[in-house]
């Protein structure tokens, strides 16, 4: 299938999301679509997928113009999309999830016979080892993605759009996905791969299109493109100053000590975690998400009750349990999905920014109630928009809420900073800004525990890296001596 988009323009009010973009995908071709957050990638593919209609421009499939009113139309024309947020139902089995999306499913679907074979054919090809009866909740993220892909292929898609598919995968899963993408292309399907990783481009793209501020700034064969060329294409002339590394701490004494930590529930847990972090040290915690990271972070921050073990900061037990509630002001904590877990949506920005010190206010707050006076400088410093402290947090976009939480948790002196995926979903410039603030705390002598899936960033900025697997620390290495592939194997639970 040969798809060509011509002169696509899409405006939202005065904002131009796409400006006269031409894009072609040939049969059997893998096109990598690159760009920063807000460059217009998602708008463009939403138009291709029929979610939105362009203000100007046309889409042609095999030379014939088409007009998509909704994804139903585009699916009928053979276009499928795998979203970043999966649309699988965790409480159902893999087979049931596929059945839900299968065209012309009988009223009482059988679990065997020709119909079932047809249903599972694509899945068997993509993930032969996956048991179709397993609950989706129980399978790793990489496999979930393949189930999503099988769902799309079951609709006989000739063009598959993958939205940042590798952002949630381990290195090994990533490599497997790259192979699958090549297979799809070899079968004559077209693939549009949205990404901002050079790795994805290098290992499976035929051609690269780069968007910047709504315009297509580059369209060329992928072969021979270097990583530096690519990132300068994405950010344009704008210079993104990378966060600088923090020198190794000189006082190698235990500041944060975790002993035999056990906590969690049926969905996520840690069992028997022991860690020691020095003042000024950045400990990176790597691992596939869902291996207990959220529980570990919440326990270190004193937000979640521990079942056993202790967390000691500067000689004082700070874990939450029978003993009491730790002082929220000595720990900065960016929870995972901060836009959901880190804000009170019905309250205004002043209160949201003042939360950590609320307990120090007198019962009758009087003039000391949280006000715009303290909030405004924080909003400015962290570039939170709109800069209006009286707005309710729920009026802000996800990215701005993330900056809001960072502003609250990373402002002021902290003894410990715990950050869970602090840059997930942020673009290059915002990511470096968060890194700079996060690492500044290490420079000032705090321990920093930084949970992330960005192995490259961990290797670059962390002093040591611990790998979490099934709620246990599988190993800890000095970042300077760590081997990327070795860490990747640890993340899959393999340690020799």
């Amino acid at each position: 299938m040969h798809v060509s988009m011509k002169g696509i323009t899409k405006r939202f009010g005065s904002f131009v999301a796409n400006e006269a973009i031409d894009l072609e995908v040939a049969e059997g071709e893998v096109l990598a679509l690159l760009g920063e957050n807000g460059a217009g990638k998602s708008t463009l593919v939403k138009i291709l997928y029929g979610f939105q209609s362009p203000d100007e421009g046309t889409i042609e499939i095999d030379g014939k113009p088409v007009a998509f009113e909704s994804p139903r139309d585009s699916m009928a024309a053979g276009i499928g999309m795998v979203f970043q947020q999966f649309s699988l139902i965790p409480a159902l089995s893999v087979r049931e999830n596929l059945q839900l999306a299968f065209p012309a499913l009988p009223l009482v679907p059988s679990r065997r016979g020709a119909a079932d074979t047809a249903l599972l054919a694509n899945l068997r090809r993509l993930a032969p080892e996956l048991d179709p009866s397993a609950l989706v909740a129980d399978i790793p993220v990489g496999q979930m993605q393949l189930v999503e892909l099988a769902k799309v292929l079951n609709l006989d898609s000739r063009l598959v759009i993958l939205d940042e598919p590798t952002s949630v995968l381990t290195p090994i899963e990533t490599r497997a996905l790259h192979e699958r993408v090549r297979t799809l292309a070899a079968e004559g399907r077209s693939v549009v791969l949205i990404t901002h990783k050079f790795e994805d481009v290098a290992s499976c793209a035929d051609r690269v299109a780069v968007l910047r501020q709504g315009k297509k700034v580059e369209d060329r064969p992928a072969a021979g493109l270097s990583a530096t060329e690519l990132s300068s294409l994405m950010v344009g002339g704008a210079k993104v100053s990378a966060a600088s590394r923090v020198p190794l701490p000189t006082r190698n004494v235990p500041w944060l000590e975790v002993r035999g930590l056990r906590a969690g529930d049926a969905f996520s847990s840690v069992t028997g975690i022991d860690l020691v972090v020095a003042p000024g040290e950045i400990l990176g915690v790597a691992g596939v998400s869902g291996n207990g990271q959220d529980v570990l972070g919440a326990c270190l921050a004193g937000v979640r009750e521990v079942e056993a073990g202790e967390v000691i900061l500067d000689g004082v037990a700070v874990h939450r349990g029978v003993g009491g509630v730790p002082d929220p002001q000595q720990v900065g904590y960016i929870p995972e999905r901060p836009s959901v877990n880190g804000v009170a949506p019905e309250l205004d920005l002043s209160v949201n920014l003042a939360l950590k010190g609320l307990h120090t206010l007198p019962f009758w707050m009087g003039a000391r109630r949280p006000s715009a006076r303290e909030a405004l400088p924080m909003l400015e410093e962290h570039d939170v928009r709109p800069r209006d402290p009286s707005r309710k947090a729920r009026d802000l976009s996800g990215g701005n809420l993330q900056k809001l939480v960072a502003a609250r948790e990373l402002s002021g002196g902290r003894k410990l900073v715990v950050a869970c995926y602090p840059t997930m979903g942020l673009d290059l410039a915002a990511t470096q800004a968060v890194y700079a603030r996060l690492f500044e705390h290490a420079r000032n002598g705090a321990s920093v525990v930084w949970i992330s899936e960005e192995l490259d960033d961990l290797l670059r900025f962390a002093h040591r890296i611990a790998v979490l697997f099934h709620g246990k620390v599988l190993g800890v290495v000095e970042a300077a001596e760590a081997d990327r592939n070795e860490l990747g194997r640890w993340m899959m639970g393999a340690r020799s």
Partner: protein
Amino acid sequence: MNILLRKRRELSERFRWFEGTLSVAAPALVFLLASSAFFALLGRDPLALIGQILNGAFGSTYGIVETLVKTIPILLCALATAVPARLGLLSVGASGQFYAGAWLGTGMVLVVGGSHLAMPAMFLAACAGGAIWALVPGFLRAQWEVNETLATLLLNYVASLLVDWAVYGPWRDTSNLGWPATISFPESVRLPVLVPGSRLHAGLLLAILLAVGLHILLSRSRWGLELRVLRSNRKLGEGVGMSWKAGAAATMAIGGAVAGLAGILETSCIHGRLQSGIALNYGLTGFLVAWMSGQHMLRIVPISLVMGALLSSGDALQLFAQLPEATAVVLQAILFCSVLATGGLLRRWRSP
């Protein structure tokens, strides 16, 4: 995008007075139209009937007094619902707490009788009774996540039966010739009357003072702010050292105490004795008022007055217009729907 946002703010500031008027006028207009349609359906002249309602509720001293008498328990039950709602707890237990307060308060009167400390002791016991009745579901919710709506609902029946048991059984005044009620309360435990010769008692002032006091507490104190944080995001609030469980216990207890106060006021100042069925529909009406006001302690006062007027004019409608008693309930429902529906539409219109 920025420019757009700024524009909308200026617009809303200039028209704030307009919006404020609209948020009162629009539901009132919808209510008038809908109730007119209802009267027309009954084959009556809407204008004449609405005139009769207004006349019944506010047209005479007797009408005004009866309206205010009914406003007191509605206002208190609405406060009792609204305080736990500040934490997101959906209590429908005002009538049960009303009975529990009436029961324990009466018990205190029966014990201490005519002592000069009888009145404070009675009020204290009534508040304690209501608070205990509310703390049970509050504790169940805090400790084991038992749904507080169901628990408060079911405890309503228990409390009502408890009062029945008392007045049919051990506390029955045998000189009443089988009438299931306690002995008459001594004059010393009755609050002074506001309008001489009527049954409008000083509980009205107490209720309004409570509304104002609760409003100040919830809007000015750190505790009130903490409740809002906990309601908005429980985990986040607990993470910075607030206690949701303590909040649940405190709001339920305060609400229960207020409803218990309503119970003993009704018992001592209106009926003069404890008897069966004194809560009428006050608990439910108070619940409706609380939600119509958006859990705003001050807004509850005028809305309670409107509800009180509707209830007291129900008698007038029955008497003079020969309409069934249920008419007043239907009008209540129409008011409830008008307020909530227009409120929702206005909010959508404000933030598209």
